[in-house]
């Protein structure tokens, strides 16, 4: 997850690099100039801890950064500052899926290929990334889909990332292996270049099939990294580099380690908002909503909070829920107060009582003698006219059919 901090992970450059001129959002630190040094962004660390807490993780009492070495043009220092053996958070759970760890690192620059040339833009270099690694607990594509959507919702609830796959602020790298037994297979295939939930499903589904076919033929799939090719819906092997796996991790000497007092962790956990599952339960019990309705309302934190701002004695939570869920209200344009007004008005108007209606109809008939006479003389349009007059009077809050029935009863035709 790209964390939505104001500044980058190890320097004060703006983290927002979207749509900027290439290499215009850099400084000696994120450009990896000789002599530059990293200083960690406090908020990025706090948000990663927050994410760990939200995922039910244990926050490591002692944590540090490490250098992860490899050579690539988009990696300015020749190493990425990441976390190796002492990540910020470990051992959590989301739904049925166990979370192995949550750690913090910096993003690389962006490469673009054109023919034989490669171009690099370092605007993105140094943006903070929170990496979440699960245990191999998924047994189907559906489980993965459910999990990533839940994770996205969680992260958005915390307000720490846009978590948008199309924009690249959320990226997933599934690792897939197939087995007949209950033991984990010895190989793992990692899939890269997945840019949407749909592509994730396709890639995983393809890969499951590919591996299953191989195993049926008695072949063991090779441990490798494969890239998803959107246009063909398949995965292809990326060039194998055995050395690429020797990252030569060692503790980052330029950054002192982190040690947390329980008071500090308590302070951070107080920043935790009510999370979706709990909120849904509460909406069901407190407002008497159905699981479906409650689920819809807690879809986003914005919607849930909007809903609760509307709660008033003037109307019932169920009606408000109904409006928000079914009537596609633009939460940006209509304030809760305005929505409440609309609801109140419409419920009032829709309950024009029968007595009220009867009075209005008699009044209209009394005021429109000519039309009444016309109708008595079998002129059908006159009925339409009279119904229209009634509807105008009650501001459309009535049923034309019902009104015409009442009028016909009242007028004796010759």
């Amino acid at each position, binding site marked *: 997850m790209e964390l939505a901090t104001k500044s980058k992970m190890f320097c004060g450059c703006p983290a927002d690099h979207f749509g900027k001129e290439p290499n215009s959002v850099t400084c000696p630190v994120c450009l990896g100039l000789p*002599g530059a040094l*990293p*200083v960690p962004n406090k908020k990025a660390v706090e948000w990663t801890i927050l994410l760990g807490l939200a995922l039910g993780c244990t926050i490591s009492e002692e944590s540090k950064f490490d250098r992860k070495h490899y050579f690539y043009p988009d990696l300015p220092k020749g190493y990425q500052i990441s976390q190796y053996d002492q990540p910020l958070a470990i051992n959590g759970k989301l739904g049925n899926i166990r979370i192995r760890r949550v750690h913090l690192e910096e993003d690389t620059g962006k490469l673009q290929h054109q023919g034989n040339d490669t171009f690099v833009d370092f605007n993105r270099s140094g943006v903070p990334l929170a990496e979440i690694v699960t245990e191999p607990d998924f047994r189907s594509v559906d489980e993965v889909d459910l999990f990533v959507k839940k994770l996205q919702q969680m992260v958005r609830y915390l307000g720490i990332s846009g978590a948008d796959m199309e924009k690249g602020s959320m990226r997933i790298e599934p690792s897939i292996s197939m087995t007949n037994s209950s033991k984990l297979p010895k190989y793992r295939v990692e899939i890269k270049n997945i840019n949407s939930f749909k592509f994730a499903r396709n890639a995983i589904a393809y890969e499951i099939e590919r591996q299953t076919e191989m195993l049926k033929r008695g072949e063991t799939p090779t441990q490798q990294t494969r890239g998803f090719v959107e246009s063909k819906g398949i995965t292809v092997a990326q060039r194998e580099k055995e050395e690429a796996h020797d990252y030569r991790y060692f503790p980052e000497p330029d950054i002192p380690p982190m040690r947390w007092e329980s008071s500090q962790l308590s302070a951070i956990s107080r920043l935790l908002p009510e999370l979706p599952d709990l909120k849904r339960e509460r909406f069901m019990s407190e407002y008497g909503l159905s699981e479906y309705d409650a689920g819809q309302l807690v879809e986003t934190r914005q919607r849930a909070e909007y809903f609760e701002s509307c709660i008033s004695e003037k109307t019932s939570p169920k009606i408000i829920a109904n409006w928000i869920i079914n009537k596609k209200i633009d939460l940006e344009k209509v304030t809760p107060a305005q929505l409440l007004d609309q609801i109140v008005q419409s419920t009032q108007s829709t309950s024009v009582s029968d007595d009220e209606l009867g009075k209005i109809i008699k009044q209209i008939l009394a005021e429109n003698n000519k039309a009444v006479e016309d109708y008595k003389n079998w002129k059908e349009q006159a009925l339409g006219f009279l119904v229209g007059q009634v509807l105008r009077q009650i501001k459309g809050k009535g049923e034309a059919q019902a009104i015409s029935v009442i009028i016909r009863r009242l007028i004796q035709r010759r």
Partner: protein
Amino acid sequence: MESNCCYCSIVKLLPMTIDIKSLTIIQALEGMRNKKFTAVDLVQGCLANINKYNDDYHVLLTVVDEAVLLTKAKEIDKTDYSLPLSGIPIVLKDLFSTDGLRTTAGSRVLEGYTPVYDATVVAKLKSAGAIIIGKANQDAWAHGSTGENSDFTPTGNAYNKDYAAGGSSSGSAVAVALGMCLAAAGTDTGGSIRVPASWNNLVGFKPTYGRVSRYGIIAMASSLDSIGHITKDVADSAYMLSITAGKDPFDATTGGDPIGRFVPSRMTLKGVRIGVAPEYLGVGKKATKGMHPDLEERIEASLAALEKLGATIVQISLPYTDVALETYYILCPSEVSSNLGRYDGVRYGNGRESFGAEAKRRIMIGTYSLSSGYYDAYYKTAQKVRSLVIADFVQAFEEVDVVFAPVTPGPAPKLGEYADDPISVYLSDIYTVPVNLAGLPAIALPSGFVDGLPVGIQLIGPQWSEEKLFSIGNAYELRTNNRR
């Protein structure tokens, strides 16, 4: 103003003879403030020495344009010299990033590199009114103890240009000794300030690790690099530190309380306990096939001087001295191999084929020590032994105020003497590297001559004890008057 014009014309008739080689910063400030001479005079004095010596001694790789220097000096001459380093000509080791001024790290990889920013220390010196005269030659990437690993012609010793200047801050030391500047900034990762200072009869200061910001200084070994300076005397050294020291928001490893103005306070060393370790005076013999006998004599004389000043010499033990060198030569190349990973020729510099042989060796050793299967046996083990070396000093400082040690096993060798023998050069670091492993401050002080070449001794203090080192060093300096 008319009076100025008069003054100038008088100056033209009688050439100003400031002997930059013997002038200290303190004296220079006094001289300017008392209108005895001007900043322009200082710059011109330095430039004269640069013109005289640079071609033969290969001291400075880059000299700032004369017109620029004179303009700067003239601006300063318009002020009342109130800034702490007003008009003081300073040379910087070529590891210091200087905005708009070429910075090579002594390497062909960066021979065309011009930084677009100033290191924190550079900014501080500039804000203090200092005039940056030029960038000093050095062992490439600070890899070396003699100066001979420069990718350019190595610097010659100020006392005999056929001999090594010491490294890796070779040009920094010789620039001060030959009057090309009044002080020079350097780095000390395993002795790189203390060795060249000692071999050129100067005071070399290595502060506590984290005392001075490393931001903007091309990194050698991140957990060992210390940013210091070379001056003619202790008072200047303390003065420079008061400008460069300080916690820096751009360097997460800096700390320490502000440094006050050094006031020489001791005329005696009564009550001061000075530790001497047999491992230092014994090991040198084993490691390098004997310490130079005349150096032994100078060391004895230095200790005697300290005793005469009233200090008590205490026998201590530093048992892990024996393996400190090996520890250093695993940790240092490992961090080097990592720090040199950014030189890929994409954003700056020439490609990696331009690295010199020593750089390549260190990168290879470092990569090996960090690699899968070897990390535990090499890097991690070295980190553990480092803890033991640190503990040695912690123990020692329970018993003594400072530790006394030689700087090198002998005076400067002839240039080329160690050409194909990198290990012999490593072995000569025996006295200096433990200090870096423990992150301690140390001061190297002139201690006479051996075979016509200067030698030094060093005093090592606990972390953050710079003031104590200046105080004791100052007393020693006055007593021995070794800078003749």
